[in-house]
């Protein structure tokens, strides 16, 4: 009996410690945006809207969130489109060297990280005049995400039945029509998974936009957040708190949406 009680007490102490460890760093993000004159100290919020007003007056804050949306959406669209086409072809047609190609792609995508490739990517961007180009950054990010996306997408393609495509073909549909009207609706969950995965990757990415975009008006939220707290001596906590919150909300919503709709799917390498 005492053993059982000790066990219970031990469990609750452990849970309390874990909760404290994981919650304390987050408290500031929950309280400071709604507190007047926020400091580093966590205080009971008085639910003021001043901080948000200050944020909306800042010339770069909202623009940077829009830039994040552009980068994330642009990359996700390209990744989904190109990965779908490639995965479909690789799934249905025995191209020579297909398996070796897939294996190499997977290997490359896990070893060539932003850290390892920052020097050549920076130089490549300079040579191709892609510095300060959002489209250039989108293409670079797409190239980095595609191998894993093709790999995940091919799993979805392999598990769809081929009989629909056959009947569509019997009725004279062209291959592109078949992909658009038959295959895409069948693999919609796969498209959604990869789109969300790409958005999550780009939304949080700091290194690539930090290297390749120097124009403040084009920088996404990650870079603006960093410059808000490192440049200009005293960090403006009013802006940081509200901006951090606004910048975080979309990923949290997306996570909740995905885990509700699809349950949690375990894809190794979902984060890089």
């Amino acid at each position, binding site marked *: 009996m005492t053993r059982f009680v000790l066990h219970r007490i031990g469990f609750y102490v452990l*849970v309390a410690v874990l909760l404290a460890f994981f919650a*304390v760093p987050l408290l*500031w993000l929950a309280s400071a945006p709604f507190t007047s004159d926020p400091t580093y100290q966590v205080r009971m919020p008085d639910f003021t809207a001043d901080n948000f007003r200050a944020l909306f007056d800042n010339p770069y804050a909202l623009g940077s969130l829009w830039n994040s949306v552009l980068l994330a959406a642009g990359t996700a669209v390209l990744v989904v489109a190109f990965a779908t086409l490639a995965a479909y072809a690789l799934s249905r047609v025995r191209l020579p060297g297909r398996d070796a190609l897939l294996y190499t792609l997977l*290997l490359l995508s896990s070893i060539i990280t932003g*850290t390892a490739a920052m020097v050549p990517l920076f130089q490549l961007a300079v040579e191709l005049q892609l510095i300060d180009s959002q489209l250039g950054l989108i293409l670079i990010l797409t190239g980095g995400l595609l*191998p894993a996306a093709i790999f995940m997408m091919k799993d979805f393609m392999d598990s769809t039945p081929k009989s629909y495509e*056959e009947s569509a073909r019997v009725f004279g*549909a062209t291959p592109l029509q078949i992909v658009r009207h038959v295959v895409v609706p069948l693999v919609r969950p796969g498209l959604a998974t990869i789109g969300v995965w790409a958005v*999550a990757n780009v939304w949080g990415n700091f290194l690539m936009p930090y290297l390749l975009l120097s124009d403040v008006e084009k920088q996404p939220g990650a870079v603006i957040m960093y410059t808000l707290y490192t440049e200009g001596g005293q960090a403006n906590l009013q802006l940081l708190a509200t901006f951090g919150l606004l910048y975080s909300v979309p990923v949290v919503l997306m996570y909740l949406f995905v885990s509700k709709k699809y349950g949690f799917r375990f894809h190794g390498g979902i984060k*890089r």
Partner: protein
Amino acid sequence: MAQATLPPEVLDDAKARRYNADAAGLGRLRAGAFVAPALVLISLFLVFPALWVLYLSLSNYRLTGAAAAAPQSVGFDNFVKALTDPEFWSSTWLTFEFVLGSAVIGQVVLGFLIAWIMRDRTGPIKRIVEGLVILAWILPSAVVSFLWVALLDRDGGTLNTLLHAQDFAPLLDHPMLSIIVFNIWRGAAFSMMLYGAALGNVPPSHLESARLAGASGWQQLRDVVFPHIRGHVLTNLLLISLWTFNDFTPFLLTAGGPDGKTEVLSVHVYQVALQGGELGYGAAVSTVILLINLVVAVFYLRLLRSKK
């Protein structure tokens, strides 16, 4: 499309088989065209940079100055320079500490611990704990870095308030420990979820019989649970080591300082190549990173294959 209008049974055997595999009648040429856009982007922005980094590492390329206009091949000088440079070795050692402390020990132990104590629970406690752990993992790195800057701040940071301490500045006094604890907090979710899934696969009857035979909690863990999840442990170790090794987030917390005490290899490359302008030397360090990644990734893919 004349052939396509024929009903399938009219076709001879060999044709039928091809027809079956390539149900939309794509053919190799169009299949190639479907793969091409992806391959172009991957070659340009993934494969080419990897090859270019090898070439650069053998040159004296600089961001500015004479060597920027006319770079020359310097053979393996950059590698010799790296291998004899105490800063390179100190960065390597710091990276080792960072990966070992935060990923291999910290995230694995904490992630497993949470998965283990929550294994047959349902209800609000489990949801709240797991929710917080996952929240730490999904928030953007720029945001969580600042949250930790605020937490650890010298005057008025939450940690100092909680400890009733004055002038305790962890980021200055214990920078390495700070980024290790930060990264444990940041990444424990992945290990927690992976072990949670793995523990669900341990047959309850095995645990039951071990308990009836009088095995202690630790013995159950060692003799029943561990043999079942060994594959997951290895997968987990390889993936989080690879990610932590390539993680640039420490830069957001400490920018490598103070005095280079947190300049892990990822930050080191940034400092020497893009701040210091020594692209050739930076590329040599990048090559070392690539090679280490290659070893870990090959090991991981072998493991995946042998499982299939």
